[in-house]
């Protein structure tokens, strides 16, 4: 009886079997990398704004405190986007004729807000409160990165749930004294874990069980 398959079919079959494992493994790896990539999370992507506002210039160069503009960050869930009037405090005096700032002046004249593009946008099913974080010693920099070095603002972190849980599971690795909350480039004075543990006790930060309870963030 004639053979249906050539002898080389054996190699083909073996390659298929082991190849399938490799291909499935590679696919899994690719999905994993993609789902965490900046492309998916939009981290490090500088968003186009109506006015190219530079945190690097205002914070890094001039030393304006975060709370000068984001006034409600210590008391509210929302840090607050400053009204045009806040810009005009200075810009009614300096850079009066700058064409770049025309949208700001126009907004002031017409009483219409500037449509800033939101950079950090959490899903609606997450309850997030800036006030509690700042008051318990989470620095601005911890989540937002070195804003003082961003000419155009970009999201520093993935904002994925695993990233939130990094800190909610081990807050001692990230907590700093409250007086340094807006400091950029903060360096702990000693061992971070030790300081963190002390601060957790002092600020009465709840244990990981309460911090990682579903309803802490998903209310």
């Amino acid at each position: 009886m004639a053979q249906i398959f050539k002898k080389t079919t054996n190699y083909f079959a073996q390659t298929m079997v082991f190849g399938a494992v490799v291909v499935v493994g590679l696919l899994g790896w690719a999905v994993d990398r993609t789902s965490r990539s900046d492309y998916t999370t939009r981290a490090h992507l500088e968003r186009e704004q109506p006015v190219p506002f530079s945190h690097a210039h205002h914070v890094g160069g001039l030393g304006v405190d975060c709370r000068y503009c984001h006034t409600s960050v210590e008391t509210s869930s929302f840090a607050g986007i400053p009204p045009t009037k806040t810009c005009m405090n200075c810009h009614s005096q300096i850079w009066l004729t700058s064409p770049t700032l025309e949208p700001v002046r126009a907004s002031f004249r017409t009483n219409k807000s500037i449509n800033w593009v939101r950079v950090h946008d959490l899903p609606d099913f997450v309850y997030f409160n800036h006030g509690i974080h700042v008051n318990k010693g989470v620095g601005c920099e911890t989540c937002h990165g070195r804003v003082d070095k961003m000419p155009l603002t970009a999201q520093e972190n993935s904002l994925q749930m695993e990233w939130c849980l990094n800190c909610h599971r081990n807050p001692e690795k990230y907590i700093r004294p409250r007086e340094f909350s807006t400091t950029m480039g903060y360096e702990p004075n000693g061992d971070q874990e030790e300081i963190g543990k002390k601060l957790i006790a002092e600020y009465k930060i709840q244990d990981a069980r309460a911090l990682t309870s579903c309803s802490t963030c998903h209310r």
Partner: protein
Amino acid sequence: MADELQVIEEARPEEIIARGYTFGTVTDQIAAVVLSKHTPIFWFACFAVAIGLLLGFLLAVGALFTQGLGVWGLRGPTMWAWDITNFVWWVGIGHAGTLISAILLLLNQSWRNSINRFAEAMTIFAVACAGMFPILHLGRPWLMFWLFPYPNTMGIEPNFRSPLVWDVFAVSTYATVSALFWFVGLMPDLGTLRDRATNPLLKVLYGVGAMGWRGSARHWAVYETASLLLAGLATPLVLSVHTVVSFDFTVGIVPGWHSTFFPPYFVAGAIYSGFAMVLALAIPLRSVYNLKGLITDKHLDNAAKVMMATGLIVGYSYILEAFAAWYGGNVYEMAAFWNRMTGPYKVQYWVLITCNVVAPNALWFKKFRSSPVILFIWSLIVLVGMWLERFVIIVASLAQDNLPSSWRVFESTRWDWLTYLGTIGLFTFLFFLFVRLLPMISIFEVRTLLPSAKVKGKGAH
């Protein structure tokens, strides 16, 4: 084709294969079902009904996905109803196939050689039907991969203390092992079909499935080891899968669910319904394809005995359940049982008692066991009874749970019916494809039942 004359006598009551069969004629008869160009009207009729129901299933699933779980009769507090009933029913049916193929193999029950192939196919198709319900009953079924622990960006894992997660592992392991066992067992027969097929395309297709099977001594040695190992793997699954399924209920504190004897009770019920399905499939098939010499009355008798034995265990469990509710003295448990027997689901309860406790006792009599028609009707009664059992356990307990203010009688919708009947359609569709395309009886294992296979070596005398 075999050269011998085909003089096959009618099988006697105690025989598991009729006299007159030879290696050649066994192979001829089983392979002919697949390789013949002629397809019986019976096959077309069943297949047409199956496709109709399958289309109904697609419609029901479409309605479910576009409109949500509300299309089913699920309303608080009955958030599990037909979906989980169907799941448990289908998983249970699968168990007989594994029992026949694995446990009876290890116990050297050679009569299982004639029924193991289609029983295993039944297992795989039943598990396929069962496996869909946990996914369909999710609010967001497209996120069903969340059931598996994988390195996700949420930084969390499924709750390993939940029996629902154990279920995922139990059922997926079961599906994998059953499919492997079935495929390994098919290889020698696919080799036979490859060699017998005349159509070149069929030759290639069966050849791919046979994976180079040539029937050499080395192949057989490897095959024997592999099938024993797989039987060893599958054996604990017969007991563990339905045990885990029963944990879905027992771990909950709902009155009527929270009992320690659920695992053995569920396993017995699974095998009970599974053997009913084996009979319901074997009896018409052996008539249509004229296989009464291979699937003899002895097989039906044995299957009926297993069905009766497990049915009696199930009946004992019902009595024990009621006794434990009374003897335990827990008012909620007692109330749950009183509601079950006299409440809004009393009709379903007493029908299931009739089907599962009264009906199997008829099988004590040889007269009933030796009549295929009666056995066929009885197997349908058992299948109905076992479906009602799961329905009553799930729905009666949930509809009247601890908060009387939220009690509500469950009402099924047409989509409940269509989804359920649709999975029967899917099962039948797959099963009849199997009957047409693959040998429904294991050719090489039946050959070992022949007297001529019992050759002894020179030193053996």
